[in-house]
C-alpha cells in the first residue's frame, strides 16, 4: 500500500476534511458579519458545505488505498463509505432543523457550524490509522457532542444532559488514553498497521496486552453506547435537543463502529486467507465482544419495554441496535463486516426516520410522551403510517429494509458455524422482545382513542419523512446496488482486503 509522507501532497487526499473545516470557519465568520436572516444563511451554507464535501469525497474513489500524512490517516473505500454516510446523516439533520423551534434564533449560526464540526470529527475518525489520530478525532466528535447536547442551555434537562455526557465521555476517553499508553509501551508503535508485527516480534505478555485492549475498548464502547458503557445514552438522548439526539444515535455511533473495525481488524488481527482473520497473539477479543454484544441488546431491549418517553425509548432501542451490529464484528470474516456495514445503512434510514417523526410531531403535539400519541392516526395520517413503517423495520419484519439487514447479520453468524449459534439465538429472542415495545407505539397511534382535532405537520418535514420512508421500504425489496456498494467499501487497506 502506497504511503504518502509529504504533508502537502497528502492534503490533496484529505479534501473532504478541508472542505468541512473551511465551511465550519466560514459559517462562524458569516454569522458575525451579517446581521439579517442569519439562521437561514447558516443553514444554506451548511447544506452547500455538505454537498461540496460529498462531491470531493466521490472524486477520491479513483485514488484507491493510501496512507496519508506519514501513516496518520488512511484513505480507502472503507473510509469513504463512512464519510458519505456521515455527510448524508448530517444533511438530514440540517434540513429538518429550520422548521423546528429547538434552537434559539440568536445561536443558529453556531448550531450549524457545530454540525459541520462533528461531521469533520467523524470523517477523521473513519480515516484514523494511528492512535494519536484516533484520540484527537474521537475527542473532536465528543467535545462537539457535549456542546450540541447542551445547546438549549436555558432548559435544565439540556444542561444536565451535557454535564452527564461530558463526565461519562471524559472518563471513557481518559481510560482509553491510558490503555493506549500501555499499548504503546508493549508494542513501541502508535500506528495500527505496524502493530501486528510489533506484537509478534516483541513476544508481549498476553495478559498485559489484554488489559491494554480492554481499556481501549472502554473508549470505543462508550462511543457506540454498548453495555456497560451505555449509562449516559438515555439521559443524554432525552435531554438533548431532538435533532441532536437523532444525529447522536446515528453519526457518532457509526463513527465508533468505523474506528472499532479498523482498530481491531488492523492492529489486533492477522489475515488468515482471503476475508478471514485470526486474533493476534491468541487474545480472545472476539469472545469478549460477543458477550458485550449479547448483553447490550438484552439490556437495551428489556429496559426499553418500560419507557414512556419516546426519545428515551428510542435511546434504548439504539443501544439494542448497537448490540445487533456488534454480532457481525466477532466473526473475524468479511461476511460479518459486510453485514455490519449494510445494517448501518439500513439503520440510518429507519432510525433517522423514527426520530424525524418525533421531531415533526413535537411542534404541533407539544409532547414527546407516548401517552400523547394515542389516536394519532386519525389526527394526522401520513406521519403515523410512516412511524409504523420505521418501527416495524427496526423490529426486522419483512418486506422492510430492517429485515434484510438483520437477515445478513444472522446469516453470517449461522454460516460461521456452531461456535456463534448461541449469539444468533440471543439475537432472535431480542428481536421478539423488541417487537413488543415497538408495537406498543403503533397500537397507541392506531387502536387507542385520543383527543380529536387535526394536526398539521410542516411540509418540509413531510417531504423529509417521505425521503427516508422510500428507501426503508425499497431496500427491503431491491437492495442489490447498496449490496454492491457495501461490498466494494470493504476493501480496507492492505491486510484488510476482502
Amino acid at each position, binding site marked *: 500500500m502506497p504511503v504518502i509522507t509529504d504533508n502537502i501532497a497528502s492534503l490533496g487526499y484529505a479534501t473532504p476534511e478541508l472542505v468541512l473545516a473551511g465551511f465550519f470557519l466560514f459559517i462562524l465568520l458569516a454569522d458575525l458579519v451579517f446581521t439579517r436572516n442569519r439562521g437561514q444563511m447558516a443553514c444554506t451554507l451548511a447544506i452547500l458545505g455538505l454537498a461540496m464535501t460529498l462531491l470531493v469525497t466521490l472524486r477520491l474513489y479513483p485514488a484507491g488505498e493510501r496512507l496519508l500524512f506519514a501513516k496518520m490517516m488512511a484513505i480507502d473505500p472503507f473510509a469513504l463509505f463512512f464519510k458519505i454516510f456521515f455527510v448524508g446523516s448530517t444533511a438530514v439533520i440540517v434540513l429538518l432543523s429550520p422548521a423546528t423551534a429547538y434552537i434559539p434564533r440568536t445561536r443558529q449560526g453556531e448550531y450549524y457550524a457545530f454540525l459541520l464540526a462533528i461531521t469533520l470529527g467523524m470523517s477523521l475518525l473513519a480515516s484514523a490509522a494511528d492512535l494519536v489520530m484516533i484520540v484527537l478525532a474521537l475527542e473532536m466528535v465528543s467535545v462537539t457532542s457535549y456542546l450540541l447536547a447542551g445547546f438549549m442551555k436555558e432548559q435544565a434537562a439540556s444542561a444536565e*444532559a451535557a454535564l452527564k455526557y461530558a463526565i461519562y465521555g471524559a472518563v471513557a476517553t481518559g481510560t482509553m488514553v491510558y490503555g*493506549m*499508553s500501555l499499548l*504503546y509501551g508493549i508494542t513501541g508503535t*502508535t500506528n495500527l498497521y505496524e502493530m501486528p508485527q510489533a506484537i509478534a516480534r516483541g513476544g508481549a505478555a498476553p495478559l498485559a496486552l489484554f488489559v491494554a485492549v480492554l481499556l481501549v475498548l472502554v473508549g470505543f464502547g462508550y462511543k457506540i453506547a454498548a453495555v456497560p458503557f451505555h449509562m449516559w445514552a438515555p439521559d443524554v438522548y432525552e435531554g438533548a435537543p431532538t435533532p441532536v439526539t437523532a444525529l447522536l444515535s446515528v453519526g457518532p455511533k457509526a463513527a465508533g463502529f468505523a474506528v472499532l473495525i479498523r482498530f481491531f481488524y488492523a492492529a489486533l488481527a492477522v489475515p488468515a486467507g482471503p476475508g478471514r482473520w485470526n486474533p493476534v497473539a491468541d487474545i480472545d477479543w472476539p469472545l469478549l465482544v460477543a458477550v458485550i454484544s449479547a448483553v447490550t441488546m438484552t439490556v437495551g431491549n428489556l429496559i426499553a419495554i418500560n419507557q414512556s418517553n419516546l426519545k428515551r425509548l428510542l435511546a434504548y432501542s439504539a443501544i439494542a441496535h448497537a448490540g445487533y451490529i456488534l454480532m457481525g464484528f466477532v466473526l473475524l470474516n468479511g461476511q460479518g463486516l459486510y453485514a455490519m456495514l449494510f445494517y448501518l445503512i439500513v439503520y440510518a434510514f429507519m432510525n433517522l426516520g423514527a426520530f424525524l417523526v418525533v421531531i415533526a410531531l413535537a411542534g404541533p403535539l407539544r409532547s414527546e410522551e407516548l401517552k400523547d400519541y394515542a389516536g394519532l392516526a386519525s389526527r394526522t395520517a401520513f406521519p403515523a403510517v410512516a412511524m409504523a413503517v420505521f418501527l416495524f423495520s427496526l423490529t426486522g419484519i419483512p418486506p422492510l429494509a430492517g429485515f434484510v439487514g438483520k437477515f445478513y447479520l444472522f446469516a453470517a453468524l449461522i454460516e460461521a458455524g456452531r461456535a456463534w449459534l448461541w449469539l444468533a439465538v440471543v439475537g432472535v429472542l431480542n428481536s421478539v422482545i423488541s417487537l413488543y415495545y415497538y408495537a406498543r407505539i403503533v397500537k397507541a397511534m392506531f387502536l387507542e382513542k385520543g383527543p380529536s382535532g387535526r394536526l398539521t405537520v410542516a411540509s418540509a418535514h413531510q417531504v423529509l419523512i417521505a425521503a427516508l420512508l422510500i428507501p426503508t421500504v425499497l431496500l427491503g425489496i431491491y437492495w442489490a446496488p447498496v449490496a454492491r456498494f457495501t461490498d466494494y467499501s470493504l476493501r480496507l487497506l492492505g491486510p484488510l482486503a476482502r
Partner: protein
Amino acid sequence: MIGLHHYLVVSAVLFALGMFAIITRKNGVAILMGIELVLNAANLNFVAFSRYVWGGLTGQVFAIFVIMLAAAEAAVMLAIVIAVYDRFQSIDVDRVDSLKG
C-alpha cells in the same frame, strides 16, 4: 537508581487515584480534577516508555497532544458546569438528576 518500573507504579497510582476521585466526589469540578489525573497518568506512561524503552519522540509527542486535549476538554466542561449551576443552583452531581428511568 530510578527506572521504568518506578514511573509505571507512580502512573498506576495516579490512575487509581483519579478513578477514585471520579467515583467518590459529588462536586462537578472535583470530578474534572479526577479526569485530569487519569489523563496525566497516561502521559507519564507515554513519556516513561519513550525515554526508557523505545526512544524516539512518538511517546513525547503523544503526551503533548493529550495535554492539549485535556485543556480543550476542561474548557468545555467548565462552561457546561456553569450552565448547570445557572439551572440547578448547584454543581453537586447528585442533585442534577431530573432525567431518570
